[in-house]
């Protein structure tokens, strides 16, 4: 039977010692999970290794950890796969999740971060008026649609992986915003406008997401929290025209128009466009504020005056404009049902 080395970051708060690394060798088949590896070490060598776990089958959401630096569930990561991704000659590196305080070994304080943020989004249905005599009659598609958010097991993997939260701990974050979409997308909820208005106006709300995809990558259940955030934005801006004080609405529109005009993002125009054009009174202070960043970019040669002013990528813009026309010509905006999107792609490929 193959042998695997788990290198676990230990932290025993009662010892008074700093966190330390400890290695355990376990003999298991490669398709067994990292969790089984840890539990084997715990059962045979050291019962004091702390890790929350219960179902072993990626349903309960207890065992979120970092494996080789990436947030995963220990129970649905194979040992063999983890070894392949190991940066340290074959050792599987296991650490507690990021963005949350560590309580012991691999156990983090979910209450202090994750659950606090969940509570921020009024996480219960707010129906309008008394309930009907029987069930609410709602389209099947809507229920399948919110099922993607309902598939969330509250493991905190996305919270751990979120880069925005690392910079801004106040960010409501991917899990809580995905939870919010579960209500915003639910036709039975009577507070859709209030919910998206609140999340748009909050400086740590939907426009605080930087679109980095880290949460989608980390989520073990295909919830795609970032996609849910984008859908919240669409409900806020397209369905309710909420012009928020964070300027998220105008920035998003400026972004789309900028690409339609230029074919590829013309960054020098984006900031002034977001504030109503270069001469708009609100744009001026923003431009001045951004001067240090521009200066740094020039000094490090990340931008050159030529590129910034002339935007040489413009030549494909006609193709991009065709795409825009195609999408805009549709009566209904194109809204993929993300939960079963794999099926549609495959069917098309087969044709």
């Amino acid at each position, binding site marked *: 039977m193959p042998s695997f080395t788990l290198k676990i970051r230990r932290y025993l708060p009662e010892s008074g010692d700093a966190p330390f690394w400890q290695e355990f060798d376990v003999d298991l088949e490669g398709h067994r999970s990292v969790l089984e590896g840890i539990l084997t070490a715990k059962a045979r060598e050291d019962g004091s290794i702390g890790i929350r776990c219960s179902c072993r089958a*990626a349903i309960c959401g207890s065992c979120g950890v970092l494996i080789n630096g990436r947030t995963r569930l220990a129970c649905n990561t194979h040992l063999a796969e983890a070894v392949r991704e190991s940066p340290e000659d074959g050792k599987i590196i296991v650490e507690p999740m990021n963005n949350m305080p560590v309580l012991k070994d691999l156990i983090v304080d979910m209450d202090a971060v994750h659950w606090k943020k969940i509570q921020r989004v009024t996480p219960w249905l707010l129906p309008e008026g008394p309930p009907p005599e029987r*069930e609410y009659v709602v389209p*099947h598609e809507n*229920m399948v649609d919110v099922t993607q958010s309902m598939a969330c097991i509250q493991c905190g993997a996305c919270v751990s992986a979120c880069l925005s939260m690392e910079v801004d701990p106040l960010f409501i974050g991917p899990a809580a915003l995905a939870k919010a979409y579960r209500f915003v997308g639910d036709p039975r909820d009577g507070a859709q406008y209030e919910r998206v208005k609140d999340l748009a106006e909050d400086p740590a709300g939907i426009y605080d997401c930087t679109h980095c995809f880290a949460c989608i990558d980390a989520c073990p259940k295909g919830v795609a929290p970032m996609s849910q955030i984008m859908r919240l934005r669409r409900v806020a801006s397209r369905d309710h025209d909420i012009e928020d004080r964070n300027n998220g609405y105008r920035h998003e529109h400026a972004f789309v128009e900028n690409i339609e005009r230029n074919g590829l993002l013309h960054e020098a125009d984006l900031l002034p466009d977001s504030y109503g054009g270069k001469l708009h009174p609100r744009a001026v202070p923003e431009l001045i504020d951004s001067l240090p960043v521009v200066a740094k970019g020039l000094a490090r040669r990340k931008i050159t005056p030529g590129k910034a002013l002339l935007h040489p990528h413009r030549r494909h813009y006609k193709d991009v404009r065709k795409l825009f026309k195609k999408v805009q010509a549709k009566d209904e905006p194109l809204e993929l049902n993300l939960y079963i999107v794999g099926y549609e792609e495959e069917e098309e490929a087969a044709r």
Partner: protein
Amino acid sequence: MPSHDVLIIGAGLAGQRAALAAAEAGATVAIMSKVHPVRSHSNAAAGGINAALNPEDSWESHAYDTVKGSDYLGDQDAIEIMCREAPDEILWLEHRGVTFHRNETGHLGTRAFGGASQARTYYVADITGQALLHVLYEQLMKHHAAIDRYEEWFVTSLLQDAGGHCVGAVARNIRDGAMETFTAKGTILASGGAGQAFKPTTNALICTGDGIAQAYRAGAPLMDMEMIQYHPTTLLENGFLITEGARGEGAQLFNKDGERFMEKYAPNKMELASRDVVSRAEQTEIDEGRGVGPDGQGILLDVTLVPKKRILEALREIVNIGRDFAGVDITREPITIRPGQHYIMGGVKTDVEGRTPIPGLYAAGEVACVSVHGGNRLGANSLLDTLIFGRRAGAHAAARADGMPMPAEPPASRVRDEEGWIASLLQRGPGSGRRVSEIKDELGEAMNRHCAVFRDEQGLSTCLDVVRRLQEEARSAYVDDRGTIFNQDVLGAIELGYMLDCAEATLLSALERRESRGAQFRTDYPERNDDEWLRHITVSLGASGRPELGYAPVTITSWQPEERKY
């Protein structure tokens, strides 16, 4: 020392539903769980929840299916209550936000399930239990002013006053190891089953029979403990659950010769016969050499017969399970499964209000035995059981608490004794005996070998000897962790004691029932024998400290026992 009208131990569906019902009735409520509530094992109930809600359906039909499924061991008064109240419960859940999938007209949609004469299973893709659990937790957060949540607290024993009434519990805060007493006018056990006494099992690591053993130690009788459900479709490799919803959506079972063998065993219902029937059929095929896999220990489940879009929409979770835990794309090829331990029909004996014979102590959900499942539980009746009887227990405990004085706080020595006991566990080192984890493994393997789909006296007696020896060994077993913060190791030692109690009660009952009924198939007594065994078997802790067997009548209202055919 916290005190409440109602203390609920366990925060899965039964516990959360009890908490909401008790709070709605105006009681002060504490709900306590050794894990965060959304980690509870109710999550794993994938397929759905039964209710006769369609106008063409009737609660009588649902009740009859349940009675027949139970092999006539279920108490029909309790089954009637469950099936009558099911439709309103579904609507209650729907109104609170459960995202039940709809049919093409936008009304609640149903799927077919085993042992049912109608498609009456309401569902959320194949994450029904998870969706229910998370929506109830939304409601717990909403009602935070009325319901105190004690998350990651571990109950070590129930509190009883001089008259034997249950007045709360002693618990350990897992986060810092502090022990505390919680007094309550009523205590509801809702801490789930004991599947971890078997290896493998579909059950989560937390399902260690805590509540069953706590009640038993306090003097409450256990009932139907021999009735252990083996689910027909668990992964060959590691025992994980593949939902019955797969067969409900049209998946079929095949042996190594490509034969759809259910034709022989249940020509009418085929794969959707009740679970005991399908599991026995599979085990017979395996035992007679028609299994698949390296040791011929598996059966093929072919989900590719279900349209792909439907699989992705409604059976998403088992696509993930197949991919992550068996390396199989179930949309393209069959997956190898076998019968595996899944559920215990038995538990703490209660009446239809959730009351145990101990005043002040209630039980609901898998920990309890009302008994609505009798010898075999129908798929999608477990979620229903947790909600109906969780609600009834919560409401009854709240009503009982109204106007009743708060019980006196227990003497401080009660906590000190318990602390001393845990300290003594921590003092044991490698010289004292075996590791807790070794004993647990041996228990699980013995139970799965001798107390599974087919049983006989010799195997059960051998297993009972093993369990009695392990009980001795557990007294000197040692753990490694000496700390107080998240000492999961010492909790494991306490859980081992709980599991051994449950296993002993199961084996004694299985030996006693000298017939075959429901999930209990005795190869030495292969027939059902209504003359002698149409009765429940109970196990109580006797005055001598040894288990004592007893009997309880089966309540029959409308449906006389008949031969059972699917």
